[in-house]
């Protein structure tokens, strides 16, 4: 009897499960946005630490910054600061009356704490402001709370107010809930260990779950000052394989894919129901040449290389939606950008230049790159191009840690890094390319791109500093043009190859999603229509 009832129970359970088995699976619900991405590099959600691109979109939705900038127009907009005034010596911010998701009020002390921890942690995230003299020693005097709702940031003599605002509008400028974070400080780490995997912000969403290499799940913050979002949940799904992501997007299992290969992006070109958004990051794919190498220290050789690469061909065949040819470090459609020089694939001219430099028979070099699309293909294409002018390259691939370490240690001949604009202005874009205060080995300024290439640019560095502190916008613009011309004339050892785009493909059901140049895309205003 016992046996019988067991079987009966099992049978009934099975029948029940079969009857409720939802064999018709629905598309993503309208109140959930699902983003297929790669979370492999998302190692920290601490806004004063995590600088990786895919991290930024998560931070942008969980935290508020003082100000933000519009991705399309680059116009500065209020965020946590309702308003601000720029005067001769500094910027005064007036904070909005709101609370963090924890319920704690947002105060000037939180802003001061956040910026202080940025410089005290002193990681990559702080680099953009350190150039201008904000650092762990000066932050306490430069950033102060005037009263509960007013913050004052003094200008150093090397920056203007607008540039300061732009740099604060990045993910690193996120304001954290100091009351919450201070509860979790261990070993003077400013709460870093805790904030890596937890969040304490005032943005439109809160972090519900982060399971590394799998999923980041955000939930709407009902107390957000901008009103509650139409989306209840935002999910970042780790889909490392591009073809799998493409199929999921096609099927409607994800709404947005932002880590597709060029071929998979092209698949959606003109396809009904999908929109390709080619987000211009303002950054570049770069060919770094080590000017400490005997041949590469010769500007004629560097010029020969500049004439030895088929930018247009590579741009079309390899980069596709990921970039476009450009050798001036300011994106072509930005205000104040100069015309591209005549650097194009001219092997005869390149050979002449090499002969003039004393290398009529060419020579051999290595080129190092991260083993990642599109850079590996870029390396092999450059290898084929330069072979035609007599420079034989051997390609060395490595993981991110290896290649970056080699770059920092000046341990390379040629290397293919990528960078981002420090702010969305011509001078911001030039920052990475014209900044090297001290080229000596002892300076060990390994965070600096130009120093890594051992490229001595004393004059250009001085001009950049002059331009950065110039308060008159017209003169500033003129200096920015002069800086670009000087850059081109110097046969750069840090050679911009392609403007860097981040193509994203969006299901047409999604309304109001437009990719931000720094991936700081806020989704609280996004809505979704019914699936067909």
């Amino acid at each position, binding site marked *: 009897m016992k046996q019988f009832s067991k079987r009966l129970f099992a049978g009934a359970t099975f029948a029940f*499960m079969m009857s409720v088995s*939802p064999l018709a699976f629905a598309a993503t619900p309208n109140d*959930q946005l699902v983003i297929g991405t790669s979370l492999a590099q998302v*190692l920290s959600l601490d806004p004063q630490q995590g600088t990786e691109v895919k991290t930024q979109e998560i931070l942008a939705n969980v935290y508020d910054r003082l100000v933000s900038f519009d991705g399309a127009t680059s116009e500065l907009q209020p965020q946590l600061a309702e308003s601000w005034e720029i005067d001769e010596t500094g910027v005064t911010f007036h904070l909005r009356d709101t609370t963090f998701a924890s319920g704690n009020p947002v105060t000037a002390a939180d802003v001061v704490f956040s910026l202080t921890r940025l410089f005290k942690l002193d990681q*990559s995230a702080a680099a953009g402001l350190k150039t201008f003299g904000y650092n762990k020693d000066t932050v306490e005097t430069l950033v102060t709370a005037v009263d509960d709702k007013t913050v004052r940031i003094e200008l150093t003599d090397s920056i203007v107010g607008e540039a300061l605002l732009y740099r604060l509008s990045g993910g690193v400028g996120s304001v954290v809930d100091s009351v919450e974070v201070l509860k979790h400080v261990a070993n003077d780490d400013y709460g870093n260990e805790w904030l890596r995997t937890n969040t304490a912000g005032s943005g439109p969403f809160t972090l519900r779950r982060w399971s*590394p290499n799998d999923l980041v799940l955000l939930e709407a913050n009902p107390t957000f000052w901008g009103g509650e979002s139409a989306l209840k949940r935002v999910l970042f799904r780790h889909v490392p394989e591009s073809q799998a992501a493409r*199929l999921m997007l096609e099927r409607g299992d994800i709404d947005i894919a932002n880590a597709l290969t060029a071929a998979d992006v092209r698949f959606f070109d003109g396809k009904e129901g999908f929109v390709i958004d080619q987000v211009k990051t303002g950054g570049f794919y770069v060919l770094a040449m080590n000017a400490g190498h005997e041949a590469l220290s010769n500007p004629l050789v560097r010029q020969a290389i500049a004439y030895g690469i088929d930018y247009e061909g590579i741009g079309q065949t390899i980069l596709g939606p990921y970039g476009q040819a450009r050798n001036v470090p300011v994106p072509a459609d930005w205000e104040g950008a100069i015309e591209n020089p005549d650097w194009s694939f001219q092997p005869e001219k390149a050979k002449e230049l090499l002969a003039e430099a004393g290398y009529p028979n060419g020579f051999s070099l290595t080129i190092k790159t991260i083993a990642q699309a599109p850079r590996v293909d870029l390396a092999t294409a450059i290898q084929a191009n330069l072979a035609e002018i007599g420079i034989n390259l051997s390609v060395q691939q490595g*993981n991110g*840690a290896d290649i970056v370490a080699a770059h*920092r240690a000046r341990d390379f001949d040629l290397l293919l890094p990528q960078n981002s604009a420090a702010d969305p202005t011509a001078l911001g874009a030039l920052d990475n390319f014209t900044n090297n205060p001290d080229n000596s080995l002892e300076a060990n300024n390994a965070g600096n791109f130009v120093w890594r290439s051992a490229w001595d640019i004393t004059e250009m560095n001085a001009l950049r500093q002059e331009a950065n502190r110039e308060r008159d916008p017209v003169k500033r613009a003129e200096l920015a043009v002069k800086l670009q011309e000087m850059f081109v004339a110097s046969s750069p050892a840090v050679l911009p190859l392609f403007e860097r785009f981040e193509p994203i493909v969006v299901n047409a059901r999604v309304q109001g999603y437009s990719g931000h140049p720094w991936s700081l895309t806020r989704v609280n205003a996004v809505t979704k229509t019914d699936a067909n």
Partner: protein
Amino acid sequence: MKEFSVIELAKRVGQLLVSLFALLVVTFVIGRLLPTDPVGAIVGELADPATFAAMRARLGLDLPVYQQFWIYFTSLLQGDLGTAVLTGNPVVQDLSAAFPATLELATLAVIISTLLGVPLGMMAAFFRDSWIDKLVRVLSLVGHSIPVFWFGIVGLVIFYATLNWVGGPGRVDVYLEGLVEPKTGLLLIDSLLAGDTEVFWNAVYHIILPACILAYSAMAYITRMTRSFTLEQLNQDYVIAARAKGASNWRIVSGHLLPNIAVQLITVLAIAYGGLLEGAVVTEVVFSWPGIGQYMTNALMIGDMNAVVAATLIIGIIFMVLNFLSDLAYLLLDPRTREATT
């Protein structure tokens, strides 16, 4: 008899521990000698050298390798595998989240491959050189030689994107994520425990394709081995005698053949199972499966050696334990091995 078993068991356990220690030393040393460390991934590539050095010291990476090993080994004995740079969590916590996903996938795959592979192998042997045999041989050759990656993508294109028979990458549809609290980490079991049939069926719908694809590659091996074991036995006198006595094919298989090849089969299945746990790496990437393979790949990419060493150890332990168990099965199932070792 009992006394012998205890000694034998102790000897095997001893061997297991020595092998594990060797695995630990090799993995650790290779990990530390590689010119890669996770510091750049943590502090970011634009940080100053001083920040790099401070972080290196905080992680203990500035100490000599033998000292690092000693610290690692002593904490390991206390069950502490260190902290993963990749996630900021204790490695043990990460592995206990990632491993069940792989275990669930590999177990289902080994069940499918056994249920199909053993009968197919036997049929091929019984009908040697017939069309059945040829078909089975082609099937296993294909399964053995075409990369799982390719099968994964093609499987997704056909069964997911075109026919809509199965779910896409991931363990469940994304809107069902986070609805079931992990108890065992095995989603199929957790969802049943929670009584959430929607999640259960969705999980079935998602696991079936990767499990079948993994199963197919393992099945190739199981089928080939079963075929050759069976062929060997078919020529034995006891089979001929059974045939002469008029036993049916079914009787021969169940009463005579299976018990005789069971021991060998168990070894093959154990190896296949171990191989599936370890070989799930590629499948996990294609199917966005948050298992140990994907965890290890990403850890390796940023030079997070705590995570890599721990994941290697876990896989190593499983392999060795499976081997150990199949050896034990030998001892239990086959009296000849006992006599031979005395």
